[in-house]
């Protein structure tokens, strides 16, 4: 009898204590601090506290939560976090206050707390199923969630932009904005063909060198000097001109 009671007491106390241990919770972003340059947000757990009497309460905000973005000291994939975004918060085993205001080197925790709610770390990209941004239905540009690698921004807006690496090896950039590549040298190698389709093609180059044949359909308007095999096109003359319907000689400068 006593053994059973003791066992019951230990089990109950264990459950009570475990209920106060924070491990991971989905949260909603309530504030993005300082334009997100410090990767810092405030969050509120999306799952309320449920009491044994059946009542529940919303959790209060958790302030000063660092956000994990894939990166290192000299590399980063960054994207904006917005109020209302859902994130997964994991909770540090020890107080993170001194880490957050420190330089990342090993530091003494400022108190003895463990697995508490205020030591949250946010990992973005967690959604309820109905809010998943991987649904083609909300996308401007089509993609296959099960087959394509896609990087998209401004999803479900008029300025959506997407880089798509398809299962068949194609790579597609979709945007209604501009595509700008700033670099020193650029090389595009296409083993079969290279097609540009645009109403207006502008090339600003001090010198252009083409190697290979050119086939052109349509009108050709040119200012400046065109030289064909050493003969200036605009001022060239012909030798051997004969009156009537005869044929002139070849062009000459």
């Amino acid at each position, binding site marked *: 009898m006593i053994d059973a009671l003791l066992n019951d007491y230990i089990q109950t106390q264990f459950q009570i204590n475990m209920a106060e241990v924070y491990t991971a919770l989905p949260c909603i972003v309530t504030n993005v601090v300082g334009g997100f340059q410090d990767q810092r947000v405030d969050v509120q757990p999306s799952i309320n506290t449920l009491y044994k009497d059946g009542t529940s309460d919303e*959790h209060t905000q958790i302030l000063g939560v660092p956000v994990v973005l894939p990166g290192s000291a000299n590399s980063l994939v960054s994207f904006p976090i917005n109020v209302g975004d859902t994130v997964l918060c994991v909770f540090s085993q020890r107080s993170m*206050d001194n880490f957050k205001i420190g330089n990342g080197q090993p530091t003494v925790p*400022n*108190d003895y707390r463990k697995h508490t709610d205020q030591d949250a770390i946010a990992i973005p990209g967690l959604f309820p199923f109905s809010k998943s941004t991987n649904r083609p239905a909300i996308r401007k540009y089509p993609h296959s969630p099960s087959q394509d690698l896609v990087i998209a921004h401004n999803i479900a807006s008029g300025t959506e932009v997407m880089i798509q690496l398809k299962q068949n090896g194609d790579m597609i950039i979709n945007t209604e904005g501009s595509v700008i590549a700033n670099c020193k040298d650029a090389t595009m190698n296409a083993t079969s063909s290279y097609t540009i389709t645009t109403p207006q093609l502008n090339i600003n180059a001090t010198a252009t060198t083409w190697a290979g044949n050119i086939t052109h359909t349509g009108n050709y308007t040119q200012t400046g000097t065109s030289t064909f095999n050493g003969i200036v096109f605009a001022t060239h003359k012909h030798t051997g001109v004969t009156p009537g319907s005869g044929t002139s000689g070849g062009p000459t400068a």
Partner: protein
Amino acid sequence: MTQRKRVYDLIVGDYKTGNGIRITGGIPDADGSVNDGLQVTFDISKTADAKRTNGNSATIEIYNLNRSHIDLLQGDYLECTFSVGYEDEGARVVAQGNVVEVKTVKRGTEFITQVQMGEGYSDLNHQKLKSLVSPGSTVEQVIEEIRKQMPNVSRGAYTGTNLNNPIVFGWPLNGTPQQMLRKLAESQNIEYSVSGGVLNVSDVNGLYTKDTVLAPVISAQTGMIDAPFHTSDQGRKMKGEKTRRKGVQFKALLNTECIPGRIVKIESDFITGFYRINSTRFSGDFRGNEWYVECFTSEVEAQDLL
């Protein structure tokens, strides 16, 4: 002070309806007639560090209550105040809180009503906190925020340097006051106790007051039983920890001044000095032999009193 002629005073009432009972023993009635009182026994545990316990609790057994009183005790979370002492100085409160469980059993020819109570039980466990203490606050402000949510608990002594620790990124309060106090006390290395409707907080082994003049003296002349002895109460603390102190345990005739967090002066053949009471156990049998206080204490060093 003479430690003879025991008295007790038990008040149990439903604070919501105003219905309650008062049972006394050894205290003369209003007309001055002798009041033998009902037989009671009690066992009261109090501690200065409630973070590893469920708080201060008491078990009081009352013999042969009448039926109407037994019925009245069936209400939920009745308020209960229990005082004991000696005729000369009167009964002093040793436990004040809420009745957690009541049962009446029959042993031989006697009906015994057992009342289990917890000090501040209802306030500690039945309130739900939902607030955020803002960044830049201190630990003391967090404690006050919790206490304000406990309507029947007053502010007591808040002592110790850890109370000034800054709260850098805010402190969320979600859960019962007991959960929040325990979490705060564990994290900030402080002790808290709700005793007599008052919340006291100190650093580990901290003193509520450094006044040694009013410290009760525990000696053979004041009721010490046998001799105090060293204990390993502090054994779980790391060697070199500043708050590690020698522990001393003593037993004496019931003395209501032996409250956890207070200083007592122990005078005996082998152990003499000022000690801080960590936990106290009052036990008594109104018509029997037992009427004792048993204390676990830790040594007070000179720098603690500066």
